[in-house]
């Protein structure tokens, strides 16, 4: 999750007030500053184009659908209902405190249970706006504080000493992360904050038009 300066129009690239700056790129990937052209990105098997080491391992690139992960792990036998019940728990937590997950800078979360013949698996897929490696400790702290972590105790391979062993928890997420080989963005590289700002502007503008009638 990013450090949050209150976002300003100044801190973002705005094509009307500033000449477009070339975006520094180390590999030949689609440009990042054109939200109006849908983009797809095929990603090498490793999950990255060029190995860039983060504190806990390779850093995954930002793609047209921003950052994200797909953590897949096998559910311990007999724990399906316990996992499903967490759907309600998280729903209630967000209802009670709508900003509880805000520090994660999320767009969407998808929690899926599936069995393709090798036992029940849990997939936790998140799309967000910050680098997984950089803010992983903050995410784990938030999972702990909101009780999200306890759902993971139903998964095989989850470290038993998760309460005191942060590196092991981070290791679990990294080991169970399945990198995408293709990501697509209809409005590429747009952050959730930018979308919310645009919608707010639209709302304000449309309210103003209503008043003018």
């Amino acid at each position, binding site marked *: 999750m990013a450090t949050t*300066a209150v976002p300003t129009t100044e801190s973002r690239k705005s094509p009307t007030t500033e000449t477009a700056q070339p975006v520094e790129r180390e590999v030949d990937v689609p440009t990042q500053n054109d939200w109006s052209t849908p983009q797809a990105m095929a990603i090498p098997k490793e999950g990255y184009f060029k190995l860039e080491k983060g504190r806990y391992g390779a850093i995954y690139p930002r793609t047209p659908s921003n950052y994200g992960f797909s953590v897949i792990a096998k559910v311990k036998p007999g724990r399906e209902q316990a996992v499903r019940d967490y759907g309600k728990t998280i729903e209630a937590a967000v209802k009670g405190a709508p900003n509880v997950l805000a520090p994660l800078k999320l767009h969407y979360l998808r929690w899926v249970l599936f069995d393709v013949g090798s036992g029940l698996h849990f997939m936790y897929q998140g799309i967000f706006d910050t680098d997984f490696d950089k803010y992983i400790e*903050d995410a784990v702290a938030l999972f702990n504080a909101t009780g999200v972590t306890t759902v993971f105790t139903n998964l095989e391979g989850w470290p038993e000493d998760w*309460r005191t062993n942060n590196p092991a928890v981070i290791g679990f997420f990294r080991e169970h992360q399945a990198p995408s080989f293709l990501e697509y963005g209809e409005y590429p590289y747009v952050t959730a904050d930018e979308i919310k700002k645009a919608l707010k502007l639209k709302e304000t503008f449309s309210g103003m038009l209503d008043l003018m009638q």
Partner: protein
Amino acid sequence: METSPTPELEEIQHFLVSRPAALAARYEFLTFRTPASGRKWLAGLIDKVGTAKAVHPTRLDSRWVTIAFTSNGLRALGVDEDALATFPEEFRQGMAARADILGATGTNHPDNWRGGMGSDDLHAVIILFACDDKERERCRVEHEKYLTQHEGVEVLSTLDLGAIPSKRSGAHEHFGYRDRLSVPAIEGMGDEPTPGSGKRIKAGEFFLGYPDEEGEGPALPRPEVLSNNGSYIAYMRLEEHVGAFRDFLKQHGKTKDEQELVAAKLMGRWRSGAPLVLSPDKDDPELGGDMQRNNDFNYKEMDPHGYGCPLGAHIRRMNPRDTAVNMERRRMIRRGGTYGPALPEDAPEDGVERGIAAFIGCASLVRQFEFAMNVWMNDKTFHELGNEHDPICGTQDGSFDFTIPKRPVRKKIKGLPQFSTLRGGAYFFLPAIKGLRYLSELETS
């Protein structure tokens, strides 16, 4: 409510706890050619190591000794591989191996480090703080003599440090900024946080074996007698390019006042220490020196857009205060000082190396120190800035910007010069007294 155990001050080395009235220091970086020689050297020095209990700022000692070891150093003294494997991976790998993660690239890269820094032969550092140069010299001679009795313990390099004489009060670094303004207060150590510095931080954030801000704290590396009450310290020798810095100020400020403002924008504080958030337009030296006021500010409410303190200014990066979460898990204790001669005002760059050589203490190098380097100092996307690193200490190669928010139009400085270069660094473990004794009494099978 649960109360945290009181830190064992008679066990913990004083280094991260008490800041004595020292004006000089010397670091000696050592290698042990044989385990026995290292242990014998250590055994004879343990009594000279000051504990947090014995060393007190008001007491009239005149020298303060600290000893710490790299992972290779622990191995060289005879700590076995099974035990070493219980220490965190980042400590075992060492700073040089993780230079990319820290952003230490280009001229900052370990390939360019000297004095045995980054080498597997670097085993220990003995840190001496002394009341003055004379006392430091006496200690230097004494340790030199001591080393002649310990064949097999060799000095890889040394560094002398001294306070920069200044007309202004307080400690300053070579660029002229007042230093040592943000110091975390630790639970059980009797410190009172200064206004705006946040709450007291649990001892486990700095010393192993205590509850930390998340809970009971991680399991101790083994054997516990070695790790309990210990800390990790990251060493950084940062050369400051004073000539380039002053040229930059002149280039971007016509008058003295304008130059001072540019200097303040880079740091987030005037050189007096006065924070821009509280005094955005002109310096306020009285505020700068007043510890009851000079940290009493936040960013989210008081300066959200960075019109006072730019979003990418050094202090805003290294302590984003209320604009980041889990700040209490990122605090560190910095110890050290300046080295090299001060460059007189208006003197041209003389090519002599000068800078800051500091140790950053914490309980987790990866979560505290490396986070600060990787995410705050050298992350281009910090605060969505896009193409900036820390302007003072970050890795600069002329390709990054520095943005100064301003009405009606912001000022963007392109191609910021390199004001500092990492000349060396290492990760050390700072054992407590029992840990030192354990190491000195190890037997090699």
